[in-house]
């Protein structure tokens, strides 16, 4: 019995280690590009702070997607639930302060999730169809409720509500200063890590920490508890789960409700932390980017964290100077060529060639131009996701019964 256990731990260790190595290599590469192109902004604490703020809403939405899809329900309605969340955060924060505001955002998102669950689980409506309808309802409801209620509020108007109180920020005194000092030296690798630490320990919103904590909570609950096992079994083979006495409808409902609440929290983050108030249409498709981050992360918490960070980072760069974005081209070019080399090493010659050509093209673009139009950074998450889907579709593994309608009593 111990042999297999040891072997299993071995796998876990190896995986964690390889993720660590990839992470370290990534930081080294970024650091290298920063020095070569002389763009300190690339890993400046300011950039990373902005990146974290841009990451959190995407991350919350991606987690929402994870919960629903692990239970077999595709939730395209994340966008609508997120929009409801922005309104909920604004309304409840105005009256009761930021943490009740976050609870309100979760509540509004949860209502969106409830609609989705009723339609898809109870009535067996196509998941995509229901999601599209919920996006329409979410956008309409938030717009209407804002127009009907916010003009009477202080700082409010038909399309916005400003001056909302944000959740507290915290700074860890010693660490923050030390990291700041090291970051300012602009050393290879060390300073980049330092500025990351600095961003995490200086004036970081407690809500950001909360969202990051949700990743760990989700991972533990979904993979380390019997509740999570049952929930995942509904996404893999609900008929089988049913024959083993799992109440599939209940677990699907719980999953979709949590999914909606998480998307709502993402919306709340947008209203309270990303900006200091509600405005109509402020989600800007981040629910969809969350979905993309989840797919990028292969329906796993660690992966979707990586996806959300990548997309959040590019999202934040577009607000900064165009020079860093241009430097990023070098980064992407090198990364693509490295990936091509890896593929060639694994014997996937065609795939390697495609990636190599793309990498070369990006490098050429870097060498031949001086700036990158802002629009191209905006497109990054979408293009990346298309690439990941096109090149890695065999390696992606979504839950086996994801998106399939299920009816009780269909077992056997």
């Amino acid at each position, binding site marked *: *019995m111990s042999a*297999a*256990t040891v*072997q*299993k731990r071995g796998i876990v260790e190896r995986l964690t280690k390889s993720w660590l190595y990839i992470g370290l290599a990534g930081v080294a590469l970024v650091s290298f590009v920063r020095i070569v192109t002389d763009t300190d902004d690339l890993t400046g604490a300011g950039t990373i702070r902005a990146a974290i703020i841009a990451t959190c809403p995407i991350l919350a939405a991606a987690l929402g997607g994870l919960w629903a899809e692990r239970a077999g329900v595709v939730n395209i309605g994340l966008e609508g639930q997120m929009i409801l969340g922005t309104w909920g955060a604004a309304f409840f924060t105005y009256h009761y302060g930021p943490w009740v505001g976050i609870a309100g955002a979760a509540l509004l998102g949860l209502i969106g999730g409830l609609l989705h669950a009723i339609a898809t689980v109870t009535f067996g409506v196509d998941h995509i169809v229901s999601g599209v309808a919920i996006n329409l309802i979410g956008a309409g409801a938030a717009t209407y409720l804002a127009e009907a209620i916010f003009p009477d509020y202080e700082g409010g108007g038909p399309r916005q509500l400003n001056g909302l109180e944000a959740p507290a920020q915290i700074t860890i005194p010693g660490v923050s200063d030390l990291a700041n000092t090291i970051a300012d030296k602009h050393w290879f690798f060390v300073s980049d890590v330092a500025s990351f630490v600095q961003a995490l320990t200086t004036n970081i919103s407690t809500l950001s920490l909360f969202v990051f904590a949700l990743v760990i909570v989700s991972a533990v609950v979904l993979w380390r*508890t*019997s509740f999570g*096992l*049952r929930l*995942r*079994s509904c996404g*893999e*083979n609900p*008929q*089988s*789960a*049913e*024959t*083993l*006495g*799992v109440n599939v409808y209940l677990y699907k409902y719980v999953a979709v409700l949590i999914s909606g609440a998480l998307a709502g929290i993402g919306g709340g983050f947008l209203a309270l932390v990303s900006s200091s108030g509600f405005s109509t249409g402020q989600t800007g498709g981040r629910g969809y980017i969350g979905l993309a981050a989840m797919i990028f992360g292969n329906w796993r918490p660690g992966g979707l964290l990586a996806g959300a960070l990548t997309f959040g980072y590019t999202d934040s760069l577009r607000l900064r100077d165009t020079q860093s974005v241009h430097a990023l081209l070098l980064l992407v070019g090198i990364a693509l060529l490295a990936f091509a080399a890896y593929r060639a090493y694994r014997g996937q010659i065609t795939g390697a060639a495609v990636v190599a050509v793309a990498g070369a093209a990006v490098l050429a673009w870097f060498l031949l131009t001086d700036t990158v139009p802002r629009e191209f950074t905006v497109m990054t998450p979408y293009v990346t996701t298309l690439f990941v889907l096109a090149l890695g579709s065999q390696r992606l*593994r979504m*839950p*086996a019964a994801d998106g399939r309608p299920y009816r009780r*009593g269909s*077992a*056997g």
Partner: protein
Amino acid sequence: MPSAVDAVQLRGIGKRFPGVIANHDVDVTIRSGTVHALIGENGAGKSTLMKILYGVQRPDEGTITIEGREVVLKSPTEAIEAGVGMVFQHFMLADNLTVLENMVLGAEKLHGIGDGARAEIRRISDRFGFDLDPDVLVEKLGVAARQRLEIAKVLYRGARIIILDEPTAVLVPQEVDALFANLDELKDAGNSVLFISHKLDEVLAIADDITVMRRGTTVGTADPATATKHELAELMVGSELPSPETEESTVTDTVQLSLADVTLTDEFGRNLLTDLSLTIRRGEVLGIAGVEGNGQSELVETIMGMRIPTAGRIHLGAEDVTNWHTRRLREAGIGYIPEDRHRHGLLLDAPLWENRILGHQTRPPSSKGIWINRRGARQDTARIVEEYDVRAPGIDTPARALSGGNQQKLIVGREMSGDPVLLIASHPTRGVDVGAQAAIWDHIKRARRAGLAVLLISADLDELIGLSDTIQVILRGRFVGTFDPSDVTPQDLGSAMTGGQAA
């Protein structure tokens, strides 16, 4: 070791679905510590009965008594609590989860989801020789291992009464032997087994008691020590066995279909079909016998152009059709009765007349040029309904509303229209009632007399022997023997199908 109290008593069980009576007046008694076989044709109501005993469906009437206590089973959970476990014919496993996760799902309270569970799985695995590793993903397991996992799952939950739904359908003979050895172990440990099957040889080999079902009710019991296969079969169909009578040969000299050394490999480079060669002449029925899953489906899909062979040639008449796709082959006159009519033969929600068009989109009377000829299709559908005795209220009825036999008669009628030169019939009478079965046999015989070449694939050996002019036996994607139906017995075929001997 049977004890005084019966493991299960079912009395007067009845169950109706909209439009059908699935069970009525069902009585079954399973003695404790025995293997009890429940036999009957497809559609006799066995599956419904099992689902009732396992709490998936609730009976409209009747009582269930388990180990002397009358119970009402509202869900599988309650059945499990009462000591009943079930292994479904289509395995109820999540591929993407590990053996351990599949095992503990729904029973997490027993031994947790960690090392406690792991130890218990190893204990069960060692006790019954299941050879299961808790931390392997289920997708890596073969069919036999999955079945052992299913049985282990049931035992893990402490079941004392184990239902096995057609457990041997997917197994090769050696695996069947291993399964039977496992069942003996289970019996020795004091469990009772309800074994559902329509394979009489196996039933006689393993069962202690036999109950026969027909048309939704139990029609008798038999003692395996004295009963013969023939008696059981007659009980199952309720009359003299309708056995297709071989007629005078109508085989001509014109070769209609020939395969020369056809090989088909899957994406991993494994051979699904290896060097298959066959010829079918006009007026000839070539039967293919084999245990399911030995390459029959792949052979049909290759001939139908849904798969393109990796090597070898296929000729239809004089034409080389190796690389033709399905539509072109159908236009050249191949009729196709698919194995799974719901998945491959019908648009269930479309009316009958649209189903008449399916597969004949490019040919009259269904179409004219790029246009669909609605009137032609409707008229021809009315003809098929009339000639093939399809019992339906009208041609606007959706196909879903028809019974299996009538759906199949519609398909046969459709595929026989437009003067086909070759008919591929895959399990043409599976899951249809006796009346429809006889009618379908008649249609195949008539077509053969008219010069049609037929490739017949069937699991029903009597059907194969009765209809075929030649029988080829397929095993693991190869032909392993050719038989003349006039002097072959089902036993001979059975033995060739399992690799016992090649003739």
